[in-house]
């Protein structure tokens, strides 16, 4: 490390070690990481969950979460030693010279205050400018970030503004005191792809215009490719490698980095064409539904055949999950009908027989909350075995063990564990086993991989693919991630505002010409090309 390099640095981290408290003892979670950042430079930090990205990002502000502490190393921000600085000095820097943009703006804005009040707080408290000046600046920044009604939007409360707008308002808030450094902690992860584009381009322009240095934390490689000048890959609290963005994308050196790059290459093999004459396992025909008086589904129709996967895609609020609720009978359709194997199903699950209930099972997005934390894995999977198949005692146990084998978890090791003793991917496997326990013909997978890291998600997709072949299952795969669709779907249904806008075989869907909305969705998926965002914005600008 040359001396002159450090001299130019805005932020220099050397040998950073951070410990987290679990029970009574401290475990090291960041094992000696170095980091250099020049003024105006954007560094991408990527890695799976548990890699220590956020912890390092917060440490760059001299901040550790409760139950964490910096146990070694040095953090130098523009000549200030953040490890040993007093609380007061560090507080004086935060929100003033170093700012933070959180993953979920909806949760990170205080629901009790108007946006502009929250914007003005840092500059006023840190004595940077007057309230009037701050408000004028806020409106200017809102305009630069392409927020609608910049003069007026600040006077709304967070719940009155959409997620994508909130994320931009949070970026504006971070810029309020004209900081030297902003930490972006997964700022677009919670957004739909179409919204993500707007936020990405807005963030990038503002950071460039103000010549602000940034640490951009994400697990999405394609996003980091658009945003960062340099990329650092982290794994379990250690650096894997670092390079400038283009060379990292073109020529990753380490195996782990290559495996990350390769995740998106998984594809289920194409299945033989089905005869359209056969009776579909599930047939949704002309279904409309409403929550109370608010209509959410309008004349939705599609079929799912044995052994096939139908991906239902669309932005949040497009009616994907509501369709699933109608199929399972959790929400009664106001019009239209749902058929299983040609038989019309009662609209409410309460009127369905046990056998009808057995036929359709669900796997949920949040395996964390979908598994009873007080029950062992054996009980969780054993319950549907007993309820639907009437197996008890030894027969039930044998069945549970067979299911654990099926999901590739060693029965002896896992059958007596509690969900809290499993990783996120393992929990999702239990969710799959529980659905399989009912011996269904049809499974609804509701965003089952979106809470998982890419490598883990790939494992789940492969497992679902294998299980489908073993049992000839039909899947309805709800997702907003089109990479997942490419990997696993046979047919695609695109939904918008509660209507099906386009439906057909996957290949046809990914080949132009599309419906305008499908086109917007598809073109919004970030690609692993550093110039993708520029090209796209240019294209859309021309159109």
């Amino acid at each position, binding site marked *: 490390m040359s001396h002159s390099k450090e001299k130019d640095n805005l932020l220099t981290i050397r040998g950073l070690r951070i410990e987290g408290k679990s029970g009574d003892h401290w475990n090291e979670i960041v094992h000696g990481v170095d980091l250099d950042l020049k003024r105006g430079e954007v560094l991408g930090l990527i890695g799976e969950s548990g890699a220590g990205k956020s912890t390092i990002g*917060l440490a760059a*502000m001299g*901040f550790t*979460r409760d139950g964490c502490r910096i146990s070694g190393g040095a953090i130098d921000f523009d000549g200030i030693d953040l490890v040993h600085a007093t609380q007061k000095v560090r*507080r*004086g*820097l*935060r*929100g*003033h010279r170093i*700012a*933070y943009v*959180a993953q*979920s703006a909806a*949760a*990170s*804005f*205080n*629901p*009790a*205050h108007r946006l502009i009040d929250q914007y003005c*707080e*840092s500059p006023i*408290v*840190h004595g940077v400018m007057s309230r009037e000046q701050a408000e004028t600046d806020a409106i200017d920044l809102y305009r630069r970030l392409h927020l609608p009604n910049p003069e007026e939007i600040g006077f*709304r*409360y967070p*719940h*009155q503004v959409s997620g994508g707008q909130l994320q931009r308002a949070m970026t504006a808030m971070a810029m309020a005191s004209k900081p030297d450094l902003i930490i972006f902690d997964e700022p677009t992860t919670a957004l739909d792809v179409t919204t993500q584009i707007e936020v990405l381009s807005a963030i990038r322009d503002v950071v460039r215009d103000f010549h602000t240095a940034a640490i951009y934390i994400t697990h999405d490689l394609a996003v980091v490719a658009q945003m960062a000048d340099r990329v650092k890959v982290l794994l379990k609290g250690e650096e894997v490698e670092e390079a400038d963005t283009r060379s990292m994308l073109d020529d990753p050196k380490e195996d782990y980095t290559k495996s990350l790059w390769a995740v998106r290459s998984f594809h289920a093999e194409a299945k033989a064409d089905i005869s359209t004459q056969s009776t579909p396992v599930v047939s949704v025909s002309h279904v409309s539904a409403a929550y109370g008086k608010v209509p959410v589904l309008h004349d939705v129709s599609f079929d799912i055949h044995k052994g096939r996967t139908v991906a239902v895609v669309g932005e949040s609020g497009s009616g994907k999950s509501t369709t699933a609720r109608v199929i399972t009978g959790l929400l009664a359709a106001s019009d239209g009908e749902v058929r299983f194997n040609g038989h019309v199903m009662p609209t409410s699950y309460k009127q369905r027989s046990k056998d009808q209930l057995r036929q359709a099972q669900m796997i949920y997005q949040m395996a964390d909350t979908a598994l009873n934390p007080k029950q062992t894995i054996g009980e969780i999977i054993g319950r549907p075995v007993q309820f639907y198949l009437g197996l008890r005692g030894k027969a039930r146990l044998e069945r549970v063990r067979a299911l654990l084998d099926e999901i590739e978890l060693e029965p002896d090791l896992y059958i007596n564990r509690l969900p809290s003793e499993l990783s996120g991917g393992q929990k999702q496997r239990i969710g799959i086993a529980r659905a399989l326990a009912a011996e269904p013909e049809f499974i609804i997978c509701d965003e089952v991989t979106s809470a998982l890291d890419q490598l883990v998600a790939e494992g789940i997709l492969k497992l679902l693919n294998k299980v489908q072949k073993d049992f000839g299952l039909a899947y309805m795969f709800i997702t907003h991630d089109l990479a997942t669709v490419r990997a696993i779907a046979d047919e695609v249904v695109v939904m918008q505002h509660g209507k099906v806008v386009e439906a057909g075989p996957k290949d046809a869907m990914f080949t132009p010409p599309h419906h305008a909305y499908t086109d917007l969705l598809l073109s919004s998926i970030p690609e692993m090309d550093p110039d993708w965002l520029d090209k796209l914005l240019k294209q859309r600008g021309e159109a």
Partner: protein
Amino acid sequence: MSQFARAEKAEASVRKGGRDMHPLAKMVLQRLGLGLVTLFVVSIIIFSAVELLPGDIAQQILGQAATPETVAAFRAELGLDRPPVERYFDWLAGAMIGDFGQSLANQREISSLIGGRFANTLFLAGYAAMIAIPLSVILGLLAALYRNSFFDRFINMVTLSSISFPEFFVAYILIVFLAVRGQVFPAISSLNEDMSLLDMLYRAFLPALTLTLVVTAHMMRMTRAAIINLLASPYIEMARLKGMSQARVIVKHALPNALAPIINVIALNLAYLVTGVVLVEVVFVYPGLGQLLVDSVANRDITVVQASCLIFAGVYILLNLLADILSIATNPRLMHRK
């Protein structure tokens, strides 16, 4: 002012502001209607419960020596020989316009009998609330700010001990130290209408302090818990990452979001201050409604008992309604629709 007149006034004021705050006004009207229904049900319960009380007022007043004929004649004079349902509706109709009838024991108008007493009770409750509410909210905030410190534990211990003792015990301890040995405040809190406000405050200090000690722990602990509950929220972390001091984080960022549970516990304690002061009033010979209620039960003066109970019930319902409205008024999600 009768319960109904009070409700009507509240309703009218809501209607005035109803044009620009439509959802809130609608909610308030709904809750008011519900409150009136509750009050109606409560009035039935009160009336039937009092009917079921053993003993007979005519017998009580005339004494054991009275002949059955005299008792019957007296009962007829008091109207007690009419069927209960008829008497109930008579009573209810009267109560609606603020006329609770006459005391059976001394034939005085109940509204005038109760009026002064009720004002005294409200005065005492208000006095205690003026001390207890700011005290417990501030203590709760401080306890949340310095949570798990010595200060936090000390405050918890003191307030918990004061709530653990029966209130008459707290009252007597205060009398011993502040009235008998210290001779700072009077042990008997008799009030009359000629007193100046300062004098009244001075005289009622010991009962107010007793009540404060009894209710502070609950409100303080709820404030502390409501604040601490929020400290793990992302927006609290965000405030810290904006460089805000711990005190500002708690007062500016946590407190506004914790107001609903705090307001509810305050309302509950206010209701207790109005309706639960019987023992304290008796100890300090304070001329409030609680003491009147106790006396009337002893005298079988059922009309007074009924009226007092109905007023207490009305206060409870009104305070809870107020808590609901304030909780909503402090929640921007409900005040500012999308």
